[in-house]
């Protein structure tokens, strides 16, 4: 049922402000519904008076339902909540279904952050995030929000690490989950070095995931990211990469990412330019031909390096 205000006695004191669209040649004019046009007219009118009231909360809710990306309606709503001293738990209870209806909306998460920050507790947030991720396990806003929660409430815990493990267990290709894990391990606020045992644990963790599904780029990127961050040589994973590809056995390749890794390993070794070249050729011609030009470009770089050496 559409909602209107012009015949609602509660709103009889308000003169709506119609939209001014600037003459006969507007650009990107939208065929608004009558319901939206009218509600927006009332919104402009209450904003003019800076009215902060219960009825305005209802009006902002109505507008958000029709246009969740209205950037000032969210800021206005936050101000109304503050002025009324509203129950912020109730606000979260309203936000939950709203976020589920608008999965790609940014403003909702910004608003949620403001509210949870004021509440000063992450209670219930983990459960709600799980509900959101059931809809889309790689929702960018949700993962960004999760990082904010971790930072705001200092949740760099074993429990949080275990949670990413469960997410990766559910879908080993969920790159958002891998990224969140990297954040937990490396991104602590104080920026201190990752302890030696944690580095080893992460290397083994990524290797185990690769053994499950070798043609999955996420753990390969993670593995190499952990090495790079800790300034460890890529040669450390040579034996591991050889489990999945060997330039001497061109018919038995289990992972193009292993070949890709071997290229970088060989390129750093003395007298291994031929092997690097072979790996690049296998990538270009057989195992990753959609990136043929890229692998050939890399082959050209090998030539340059050896020419320089």
């Amino acid at each position, binding site marked *: 049922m559409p909602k209107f205000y012009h015949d609602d006695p509660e709103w009889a004191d308000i003169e709506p*402000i119609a*939209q*001014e*669209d*600037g*003459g*006969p*040649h507007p*650009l*990107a004019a*939208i*065929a*608004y*519904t009558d319901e*939206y046009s009218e509600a*927006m007219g009332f919104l*402009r009118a209450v*904003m*003019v008076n*800076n009215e902060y009231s219960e009825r305005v909360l209802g009006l902002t809710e109505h507008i958000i339902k029709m*246009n969740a*990306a*209205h*950037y*000032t309606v969210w*800021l206005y709503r936050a101000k109304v909540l503050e002025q009324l001293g509203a129950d912020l738990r109730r606000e979260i209870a309203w936000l939950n279904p709203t976020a589920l209806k608008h999965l790609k909306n*940014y403003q909702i998460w*910004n608003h949620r952050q403001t509210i949870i920050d004021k509440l000063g507790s992450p209670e219930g947030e983990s459960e709600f995030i799980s509900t959101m991720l059931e809809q889309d396990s790689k929702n*960018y806003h949700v*993962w*960004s929000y999760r*990082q904010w929660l971790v930072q705001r409430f200092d949740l760099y815990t074993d429990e949080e690490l275990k949670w990413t493990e469960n997410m990766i*267990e559910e879908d080993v290709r*969920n*790159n*958002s989950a891998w*990224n969140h894990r*990297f*954040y937990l391990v*490396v991104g602590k606020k104080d920026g201190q070095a990752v302890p030696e045992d944690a580095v080893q644990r992460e290397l083994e963790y990524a290797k185990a995931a690769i*053994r*499950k*599904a*070798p*043609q*999955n*780029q996420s753990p390969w990127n993670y593995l190499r*990211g952990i090495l790079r961050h800790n300034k460890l040589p890529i040669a450390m994973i040579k034996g591991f990469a050889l*489990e999945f590809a060997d330039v001497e056995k061109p*018919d038995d390749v*289990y992972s*193009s990412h292993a070949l890709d890794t071997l290229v970088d390993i060989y390129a750093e070794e003395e007298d291994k330019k031929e092997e690097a070249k072979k790996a690049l050729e296998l990538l270009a*011609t*057989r*195992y990753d*031909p*959609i*990136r043929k030009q*890229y692998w050939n*470009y890399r082959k050209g770089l090998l030539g340059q390096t050896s020419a320089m050496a």
Partner: protein
Amino acid sequence: MTAPGLSVAGDESALRYSKHINYWRRNLKTFLPHHYTGNDNNRLTLASFIVSALDILGDLETALSVEERQGYIEWVYRCQLPEGCFRGAPATDLKNHRNDENKVWDPAHMPGTFFALLSLALLGDDLSRVKRREILLWLTKMQRPNGSFGQTLGENGKVEGGVDTRFGYMAAGIRWMLRGNVEGPVDGVPDINVDKFVECILESECYDGGISEAPFHESHAGFTCCAISALSFVDRLPLKSGQPPDSRLRGLQNVPLTLHWLTSRLTLTLDEEDIDTHTGEINSSQTHHSPHSFAKLKSHPPKAGKQSSTAELTSHFEMEWVGVNGRCNKIADTCYAYWACAPLQTLDYLDIIDTKPVRRWLLDRTQHLVGGFGKLPGDPPDIYHSYLGLVTIAIFGEPGLQNVDAAFCASRRAIEHLQSLPWRKAIVGNDAASYR
């Protein structure tokens, strides 16, 4: 995956040129359907895409009468605020009720201001009525201490909106349009903190070489594109070989890694059904592989090679269409063709990918019969995907389309028009002699 009803190899993929013109003229001259209501506060963005699409198609002169062109220019100027800068759309206009107490609800808007300036340039206006000084002052207030930019200024001068590189991209673009690459104060107006902005981009680089919305967030082609384009606007791209080093802080910590990440966006996963079918691996916890029990990778035959078996034929056809995704292990989507290919072009590395199968994917799979492009195969066209699909094939050099500036996502003609304006020449000097 099969593609019923679509032409197979040998048939030329074609841009349905006249259909695109119809599609964009309809967007220009008739009301957009009500499901665009969710974009009501970003009408200047939609406006810029619509005008720019017709410009790229070479139809702008024909589509607009002199009176219409002037009318559209006037509409853009009506979105300019009394204190300078532009609102995102007429939706927030409080008209003659607007005053110092309530104008925070009708604020200057970063995308609104960026796309208003671009639209004026596209329509051939000289920007003489733009309050340029006020915009440049506002830009300095829109920058946060960490170097990032926001969407609007809220109460007490608080910078509102996301911290991601989209707003930084637009801030850098506005700065370039109004004052070129000149660093330091211009006419007494201080500059933004360019070093801090570059630092903020450097901090958003991920362990895999992509760029994300903020430190430690996930690499994303949209944020990567915005960051690299922004670096080009402030002339802080990594040095190219042969370029003499200077002492200025430059973007991208590891160019080879970023190139690796960008080329990794090419994918054969073109719709939901394709997930898991290309690797032979099952993607669930139930199938626990012991080492080396998993499938060997399929070896693709060379494109012009033997086609004696069905399997080989399939992979031959697969190579005809290559999609582009926005993040690792996601499916292809029209808009990411732009977000991943534009930064390659801006960095001068577009030639490290084969653009032909990407073009074919766009034209055969996501181009729509009525014109425009959808997000995924079979989707109806929308303004956002139609525009970015069109710009992408223009970047690839599609015959019949205008040359585009990949970073500005608009025609070079419009950018050259800006460079030719006398007030800008007076600030920038002779940069108009050479294109950006």
